[in-house]
């Protein structure tokens, strides 16, 4: 081996051939001469060279099979777990585990992973990428990818002997034989490559750094909205203006002649609080108007009715007094209805009328404290003129619905049945202020008395505590 007297390592010997046939016959001769560490380099796959060189078949198909089976399993487990166990919901009536529907994805993943197996497995088995190869040191070897065929015998072969191999190769008709030596070309990568590489890395880090900076710093500027109309929907909110309609209101009233669902199921009595049958006798035109306003949802009629009522109020005998009101709450009054009424009263009425109905709600307290000049104090529910015999249920209902003096009508905010529930609750409220223990049923008496005693004890305890606290505060201050 050292006969060549070249200081660099010798890897082996290569011979160049110009035709496939000469290469193949040379391969056979080398094989028959007993060399095993041999290889051929060709510009295209040569059929039969594996036999001529004694190359063993590859395990690649098994790698693919295993990778493919893994893909199938991953896909099936993933789909079943995601759609049938972790996040269950029924789509188009299909069962949670719909195998036919899972097959397409299972198939695709099988193919994908098997292809990865074939692709990456092949490169791994071939030991590529490997950018440096002693074969590349010979400039003539550049034609191995063009039109020349090379046969190579490795120096580590047991039978390797430089002269013997050279003679054998020469004998096969090769016209170029050379030793393959260690690559002595400069190892370092040219500087511009590093420069470009460095610039590319730096550039690729810029967006990342920007994002990280934004994540950790605070800014007084408002957020930048890329998709403005997605962050701020162009759809209008309640009470906003719009240029789309002549009246500039974005909220639209019902289309004339239409009634919203659930709004025409009740009788006119219940809708108005008026005993319509009696009114028919006294004021038929008004009944007609009411029918148009309430049953046919005619806004004009509603406006006419309002005008008529307002006009008549000034007259000596107010229309409020002459109207035959419904005397009795049309809903069945029970604990449930009262609870409903209490809830609605607390929401809508108590702000002015107070939770107890004495007319001293928070709004009134505030109005009094600032001496609001136009403020009309809300009525107390506990005056006799408002008791059922003087102020029938229907009238109370009408007041809630249409308003009185400064109080606006609540028909738009409170649902029909809720208004009647408030009427029932107000009656209960009125009764509660001067009720005697006789009204309480025998069975409840003990409980009520106990509750009263508890309440009194609690009040007393609170008063004592407040006293003690005041005393203690005094002491600490002094």
């Amino acid at each position, binding site marked *: 081996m050292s006969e060549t007297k070249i200081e660099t390592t010798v890897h082996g010997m290569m011979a160049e051939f110009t035709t496939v046939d000469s290469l193949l016959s040379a391969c056979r001769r080398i094989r028959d001469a007993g060399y095993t560490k041999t290889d051929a380099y060709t510009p295209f796959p040569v059929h039969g060279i594996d036999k001529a060189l004694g190359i063993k078949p590859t395990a690649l198909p098994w790698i693919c099979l295993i990778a493919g089976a893994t893909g199938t399993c991953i896909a099936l487990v993933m789909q079943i777990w995601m759609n049938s166990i972790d996040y269950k919901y029924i789509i188009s009536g299909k069962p949670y585990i719909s195998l*036919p529907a899972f097959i397409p994805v299972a198939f695709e993943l099988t193919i994908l992973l098997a292809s990865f197996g074939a692709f990456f497995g092949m490169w791994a088995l071939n030991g590529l990428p490997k950018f440096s190869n002693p074969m590349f040191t010979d400039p003539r070897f550049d034609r191995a990818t063009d039109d020349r065929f090379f046969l190579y015998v490795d120096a580590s072969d047991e039978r390797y002997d430089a002269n013997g191999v050279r003679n054998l190769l020469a004998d096969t008709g090769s016209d170029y034989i050379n030793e393959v030596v260690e690559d002595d070309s400069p190892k370092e990568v040219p500087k511009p490559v590093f420069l470009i590489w460095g610039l590319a890395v730096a550039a690729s880090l810029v967006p990342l750094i920007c994002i990280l900076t934004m994540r950790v710093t605070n800014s007084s500027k408002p957020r930048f909205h890329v998709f403005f109309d997605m962050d701020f929907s162009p759809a209008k909110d309640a009470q906003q203006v719009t240029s789309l309609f002549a009246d500039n209101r974005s909220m639209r009233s019902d289309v004339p002649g239409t009634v919203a669902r659930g709004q025409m199921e009740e009788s006119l009595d219940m809708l108005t609080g008026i005993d319509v049958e009696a009114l028919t006798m006294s004021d038929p035109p008004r009944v007609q108007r009411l029918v148009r306003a309430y049953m046919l949802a005619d806004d004009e009629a509603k406006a006419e009715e309002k005008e008529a009522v307002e006009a008549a109020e000034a007259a000596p005998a107010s229309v409020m007094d002459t109207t035959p009101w419904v005397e009795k709450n049309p809903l069945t009054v029970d604990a449930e209805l009262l609870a409903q009424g209490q809830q609605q009263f607390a929401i809508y009425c108590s702000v002015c009328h107070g939770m107890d109905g004495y007319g001293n709600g928070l709004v009134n307290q505030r109005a009094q404290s600032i001496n609001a000049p136009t403020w009309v104090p809300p009525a107390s529910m506990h005056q006799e003129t408002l008791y059922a015999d003087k102020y029938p249920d229907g009238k109370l209902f009408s007041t809630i619905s249409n308003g009185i003096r400064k109080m606006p009508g609540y028909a738009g905010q409170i649902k029909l049945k809720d208004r009647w529930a408030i009427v029932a609750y107000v009656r209960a409220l009125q009764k509660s202020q001067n009720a005697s223990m006789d009204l309480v049923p025998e069975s409840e008496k003990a409980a009520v008395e106990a509750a009263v005693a508890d309440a009194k004890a609690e009040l007393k305890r609170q008063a004592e505590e407040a006293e003690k606290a005041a005393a203690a505060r005094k002491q600490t201050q002094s």
Partner: protein
Amino acid sequence: MSEHAAPAVKPADDPAFQLPASLRGLQMPLLGGGLVALLIGMGMAFAVSDADMPRFGMSAYLTAFLYVLTIVLGCLFFVLIQHLVRAGWSVVVRRVAECMMIMIVPMAFLFLPILFSVFSEGALFVWTDPEFASKLHLDDKMWENKKLFLNAPFFVIRALIYFGIWGALAVYYWRGSVNQDETGERAATDRMQYWSGPAVMAFSLSLTFAAFDWGMSLAPMWFSTMFGVYIFAGGILAAHCVITLLTYLLQRAGALKEEVTPEHYHDLGKYIFGFIVFWTYISFSQYMLIWYGNIPEETEWFYSRQDGGFGYLSIGLIIFHWLIPFFGTMSRHVRRRPGMMAFWAAYILVVHFIDIYWIVMPEARVVETHTVPGFGGPLGILASLLCVVGMSTLVIGLVLRVAGGNRVVPVRDPRLRESIIFENI
């Protein structure tokens, strides 16, 4: 490139190209035995027919008929496509396919019972029953429209057209190939190639409609545009199996010892594997679309194949028609062993019967009451098997007869040499 010069083609009179005597002697036993088995099977099948399964007898016959017919048509298509693509590798096995292909002529005679059955009301196809529409409470106008297609005279005309096309193609390609054995003229190959394009088109069109007529119209209210492709997929798979199996038997008996090599089995094996996948693809797509769409007029067909024993057959088809042979024929080591390929070919020929049985037999039940379809008990199963075995044996007997009168390889085909020296990649 190879080490040795390619072997020369043997002369046309070489004994390797003749049907071996051992097979020649089987002709009459197979013909006789097949006919007897078919007749006994038919007799038993008609005995099984009862109120629950009024059409069992004719359905068993149709199953056997469609089984053999799909294989014969598959072989016809095989021959046409080899000419169309100027294939070289397949020449050594082409004559086997041609012998099967020419069986379309006896199949036309075996079709006669089915042809007559449409004139006997409700004997095989329920649409021949004049009461059918009223039994199922169908819309009259719709049924009138359907009857424009599903009526006995038009059915007969169509059947004549199909057999006319197939017979003409089979005879033309048979004559061309056999005559070339004597004359050896290259122009014969050119002519056959020239006509193969239109031939394939005529074939696909007629096969599609034949499948609609003889398979799909068993359930007259059901429809699937893919049904023709489905029948084709099963047939072409079985055809490759029959070619493999018969070639193997020929070699075992002593013919074609040197001409057919593991390379050819390897290639046939690849096609068998490929068509197993194709069949699965087609049948899965058909099931999937109907299952997913879930429209009553379409799901009906699969419902009657989920009832009773047919539910097990449906699952069985997935396992035995796809899973097992898929992995069985996947490896090249299997495909390169003639014995193994012959086994898988025989195996698939069995499951192909299950496929056809599964298509036809559930429709033998009473349609209007939606009874659960059954197999007709042990006797019914035996009858169905006897019918198909009988008809297949009969046809194999005829194949041997035809092969005995000719050579078992197109001896003067210009591409024969290419086929003999053929090697896979």
